[in-house]
């Protein structure tokens, strides 16, 4: 989730001028041209002193793309770019990602976003994306867990559409319980499994004897008490 933008430090650079033609072959020329366009697009949003797109840049990108920076599609974009650090896109990441998307301009990127959604939803990609979403929140070095508040937002963003009732209920529980103040990756993965495998809202096929994380055992107990 891209964090809120901080104050800009320097003015954004202007777009660079068109390169002159030389004796290179057409396809490589096209490649170079494509790469140049990608780079140009990069420079539109990058913070020149860091050499990468920072949170402010991402915000600007979002508004240009016509999506809210809290939109899940931006998270998907980060996933596609394999962005390491939340709120930042390096030039490498940008280049590789946009090439993989096959886009080199803003309008193409806009279109690609909806295709991206479908790509993420493919079962083979979904789990990867889901795990990525958690990792993306580990902003500190050696951080292994994410605080409850952020997890609730993330759950809503990532799973909310597909599993609305489960997520709403789970978020409610996470906010009232006080056994856990942070969630680790093992628990995170099991949230998805829970939504996929356990029938809702009866929770009939949930068996606490199995290896579900304790937090889900507690959640199920809480649910059963509420509904008894």
């Amino acid at each position, binding site marked *: 989730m891209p964090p809120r933008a901080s104050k800009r430090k320097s003015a954004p650079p202007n777009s660079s001028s068109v390169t002159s033609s030389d004796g290179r072959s057409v396809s490589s020329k096209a490649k170079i041209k494509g790469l140049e366009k990608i780079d140009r697009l990069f420079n539109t949003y990058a913070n020149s002193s860091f050499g990468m797109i920072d949170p402010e840049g991402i915000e600007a990108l979002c508004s240009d793309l016509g999506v809210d920076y809290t939109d899940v599609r931006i998270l998907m974009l980060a996933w596609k770019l394999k962005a390491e650090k939340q709120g930042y896109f390096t030039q490498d990441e940008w280049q590789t990602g946009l090439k993989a998307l096959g886009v080199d301009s803003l309008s193409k990127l806009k279109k690609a976003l909806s295709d991206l959604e479908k790509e993420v939803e493919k079962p083979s990609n979904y789990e990867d994306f889901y795990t990525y979403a958690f990792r993306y929140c580990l902003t500190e070095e050696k951080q*292994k*867990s994410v605080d409850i508040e952020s997890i609730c937002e993330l759950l809503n963003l990532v799973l909310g559409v597909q599993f609305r009732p489960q997520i709403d209920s789970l978020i409610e529980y996470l906010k009232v319980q006080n056994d856990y103040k942070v969630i*680790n990756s*093992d*628990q995170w*993965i*099991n949230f998805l*499994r829970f939504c996929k495998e356990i029938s809702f809202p009866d929770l009939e096929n949930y068996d*606490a*004897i*199995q*290896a579900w*994380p*304790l937090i889900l*055992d507690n959640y199920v107990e809480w649910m059963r008490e509420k509904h008894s």
Partner: protein
Amino acid sequence: MENKAIGLDKGWDYMQKGITKLKRILEGLPEPPFTSEEYMMLYTTIYNMCTQKPPHDHSQQLYDKYREAFEEYISSTVLPSLREKHDEFMLRELAKRWANHKVMVRWLSRFFHYLDRYFIARRSLPTLNEVGLTCFRDLVYQEVHAKVKDAVITLDTGAYYSRKASSWIEEDSCPDYMLKSEECLKKERDRVSHYLHSSSETKLSEKVQNELLVAYANRLLEKEHSGCRPLLRDDKVEDLSRMYRLYCKIPRGLDPVANIFKPHITAEGTALVQQAEDATSNQASSATGVQEQVLIRRTIELHDKYMAYVTDCFQNHTLFHKALKEAFEVFCNKTVTGNSSAELLATFCDNILKKGGSEKLSDEVIEETLEKVVKLLAYISDKDLFAEFYRKKLARRLLFDRSANDDHKRSILTKLKQQCGGQFTSKMEGMVTDLTLARENQANYEDYLRSNSAAHPGIDLTVTVLTTGFWPSYKSFDLNLPAEMVKCVEVFRGFYETKTKHRKLTWIYSLGTCHINGKFEQKIIELIVLTYQAAVLLLFNASDRLSYSEIMAHLNLTHDDLLRLLHSLSCAKYKILSKEPNTKTISHGDYFEFNSKFTDKLRRIKVPLPPVDERKKVVEDVDKDRRYAIDAALVRIMKSRKVLGHQQLVSECVEQLSRMFKPDIKAIKKRMEDLITRDYLERDKENQNMFRYLA
């Protein structure tokens, strides 16, 4: 008819077909009955074979083959069918086979009739009829007659006892019914030895047992006023022994008895627990502890009583040992008035062992009682909780109760070790050893003082050095010691450093005792107080009157501690300090003065300081230790197995720890999660329920 002679084989082949057809009819298989032609052909074949000129006269062979036909049929078909049946069914089968046999004899003798007319008469041999019947007698009757007799008698006896039982069960009490049953069995056994085959005895006894004991087992045992439960309640040892004797011979016969035994004990035990609960809630709080101690005593008595049943009446049968164990495990783990049974048991031991405990008992009785307590410990799942409470109380006894009996101390430790393993008692043994060493140490210290007279602090000091790992953890505060005591501490430290340089001494003033002379107006009284109390009193050597806050500032104690201290000195039995205002409780604005008018008839008094309730801390400490123990067990198991399923891991963990406590599944899960976060374990990617050890 042809003139050619019929060969024996060919002729017999033909006969055999007829015989086979006859057998099929007898067996009830679909077969059309003999036609007149068939009959005539068979008869004529025999006739011809018998009237042929020698050497083709086959009369003798045919006569033999006739008998063999019966023998063959009986051996191959009739006897097996009888052998596989028993009792009533066998009798029915026998009747059927006998009827069949007569038919077979009739038919075959008709086919072979010609033999009867000349051959048999000439040779004076038994007739075909006789031969047929003799075969049956020789083969069948010989074999089964004993069985038949038994079957008939058993059937008869069974019916007899069934009738008797149905009337007895209505009228008789359980003990009477059992007496009658025992007699009947004895009578039948005697009867058998007189005129029946000994192999019948088992069958017969079984039948009688069945009719008398098995058929009515439930009604008998459950009889309201005389059944198993009342017998247990009223110590009817003889009747219970008889019950065991009667039912132990029946396979699984003891199960219903055990199934009454166990819930009965559980109910009695639970009732005791409930009684204790009720009594404590009714009585005033000053009687706390008494009801719980009574409960332990009663539980011990209950155990003695039912263990006696198991060993005497029930001949130490494992089924009953198991029932007793499971019953006790149920109610021994219930909490009573918020105290766990582990704690109650530890308090009970403490009371017996400490000087001035609630009972004055002889050594023998103490030993015996301790032995029984250790037995009860086996049923408690939170053994580690007991250990911790016991250790805390042992520490108090060791440090304050110097003259309490050493032998008992050691003997209970030995018993505990046997019951729960060395790990359980190692710390406690360490504590006891520390004290022995401390005495030596003290002697050395006194020698040291003698040789360094300048170093003497001016006050007699006895120090007990405790090894940290063995003793419960004590908070040590930075009490501001009075100057006199500071010197003591320094001198001892000097001495200790001559002995060893590598150890750090931490002083626990909360455990120290002090003898102070109080110079009261009437007389000097020696006060035995705790070091903390002494520190407070010594302040009054310098000032006549001190406020609460001044005392607090001087000594650097917490409010909780100070309240207790001041209370013990000014509001309890002995008012060494007088308080202004003279209320029953201490408040922060109070003022204190040395009460010079205080006196007592004794020359030396002990001013007690009631100890803080340690329960919460003990429970916390035990919980912490349990977390480490679970971690260690999980890592140990995973290290050796490398990959393991969740359920198996949990059950192995529970098993490993069962000697000390029963781990909660949730606690195990939580520790597993912690180990995952700390990268000791990981979940298998493919199978959510499998875990992998990360080296």
